[in-house]
């Protein structure tokens, strides 16, 4: 029974992880930028939700779309006015600049929000129900559902909408897309903005389920990266599946080995996955 409970916990948590990986995978697949500031953006989204909840008294789940919109604007501006300046240079440089951005965001957050632990704590945060002896927390279930809905939204945007076609065209061939009247500067900024908005929602859910500090960014970046690799960059639902793999692996590790080994597990999985799965299958946006 304990094992089943752990598996359910892992799957529910994995939905949220998948959502974290989704923004990373989208930006990576379209812009060919590994965004080392992704975890910091998740953290920022979490704080935005936190202050909408505690400051303005907005229910966290109502605050999520507002936080997502705020993060979209921030992401759009970051790409349009900073990252676009050097986006065509070697990946070493885009790694370094997003790394620098993560440092800036982290310490701005420390200045503005202090280093204290924060939890988004609505009245129903402890609510749960039981199905066949398995306890299911309402908030985790909601996070899981939201992750799937957003993966569906991303899939629909990329495959069914004109703007999505423009995004995919830009990812495949920037020059050709430009010849057909697509402005890549705008498309890149839009894509990064959507990635940041997804990070914002993930951050809000993360803040409800666990706790926020300005420093969670680096670990979440590494986790999102692993998930993006496991899931691949082509299909949003596969990314969610990648998140579920990591979620289950972590829960099993903390059950059998102890919670210290959670970070070790993601790292170990990363190396195993990278050795087993060749990187070339990744870019097929």
């Amino acid at each position, binding site marked *: 029974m304990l094992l089943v409970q752990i598996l359910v916990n892992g799957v529910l948590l994995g939905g949220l992880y998948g959502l974290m990986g989704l923004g990373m995978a989208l930006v990576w697949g379209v812009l060919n930028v*590994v965004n080392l500031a992704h975890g910091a953006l998740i953290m920022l989204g979490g704080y935005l939700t936190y202050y909408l909840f505690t400051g303005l008294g907005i229910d966290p789940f109502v605050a999520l779309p507002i936080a997502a919109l705020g993060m979209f604007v921030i992401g759009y501006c970051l790409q349009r006015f900073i990252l676009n300046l050097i986006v065509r240079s070697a990946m070493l*440089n885009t*790694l*370094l600049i997003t790394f620098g951005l993560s440092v*800036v965001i982290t310490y*701005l957050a420390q200045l503005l929000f202090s280093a204290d632990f924060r939890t988004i704590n609505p009245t129903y945060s402890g609510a749960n129900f039981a199905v066949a002896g398995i306890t299911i927390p309402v908030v985790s279930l909601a996070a899981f559902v939201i992750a799937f809905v957003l993966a569906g939204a991303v899939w629909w945007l990329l495959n069914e909408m004109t703007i999505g076609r423009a995004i995919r065209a830009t990812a495949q061939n920037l020059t050709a897309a430009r010849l057909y009247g697509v402005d890549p500067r705008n498309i890149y900024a839009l894509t990064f903005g959507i990635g940041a908005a997804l990070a914002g929602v993930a951050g809000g859910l993360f803040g409800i389920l666990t706790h926020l500090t300005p420093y969670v960014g680096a670990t979440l970046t*590494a986790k999102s990266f692993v998930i993006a690799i496991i899931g691949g960059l082509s299909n949003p639902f596969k990314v969610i599946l990648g998140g579920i793999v990591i979620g289950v692996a972590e829960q099993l590790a903390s059950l059998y080995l102890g919670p210290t080994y959670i*970070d070790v597990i993601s790292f170990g999985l990363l190396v195993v996955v990278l050795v087993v799965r060749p990187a070339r299958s990744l870019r097929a946006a």
Partner: protein
Amino acid sequence: MIRLAIILVGAAILACLPFFTGAVFMQFAINALILAVLTQSWNIIGGFTGYVSFGNSTFYGLGIYGTAVAMVKFSLPFAVGLGCGAVLAVLAALLIGIPILRLRGPYFAIATLGLAAATGALVSTIDLAGANTGLVLPLVRADTMFYELALGLLLVCTLTVLWIATSRFGAGLVAIREDEDAAATMGVNTTAYKVIALMMSAFFTAIAGGIYAYWISFIDPSSAFDPTLNVRMVIMAVFGGPGTVLGPLAGSFILSAVYEVLSSWISTAAALLFGIVIVLAVIFTPRGIADVLVGVRRHGWRYLTRNIRENRL
């Protein structure tokens, strides 16, 4: 030859400093020298070979713990302790390097990021290493000795980097950075070159860690495996000029001084500045401040926007 002269004269001048300055300055100077060693060591794998390592703080931590465990638990002398730390870190670099140096670009960077997070967590579970509470080393009040030790290490490290910059081995590393497949085609044994570069980097980093451990005399997992240290190595090297001999030194000395001045007001502002520096450096001067002096003389101020003109969308 000019670079060798600059290094030796600079070292000679710095070696005399303790006789003219006070205890407070010594504190700053030892920290700055250790950071300069870390930056210069990172330069070997990150600057010359082009593999952005966020895992060098692991080697630093292993150097610290190797030295501390040898001295505290086995009562060995300091010099032997340094050796233990260095051997530990070099072995770790060999064992970790062979699998993860197969990864390129972002894969390598993230794998080392995970490595740094994992080793700190692992060490805090080992009882021999004092687990979470840490270890207390014998207390020695000899700032001048630690200063000269750190300076000597920096000199050896810089001379090694100078050798790399002028040797066939270094040319191989640069070839790997510029195009790894081409380098392999030209007969460079890329795996061996990369692993050796990481081991050299780990060696100097670990010795710096050992000196730091004895100097500070109290260590625990969170300070030994501090990930922000990696942040500083990368930023200082990139700011100064990655893949050059003197750039990382200039970068680390300048930024250490700026950090010291700023952190006497607000420490967060200092850390924030580091982030801003790396963003600006990547946009305007990706080849470091050393290259700015040359570039501006040759091309005028248009040099600063050249990188944007070439790489903007």
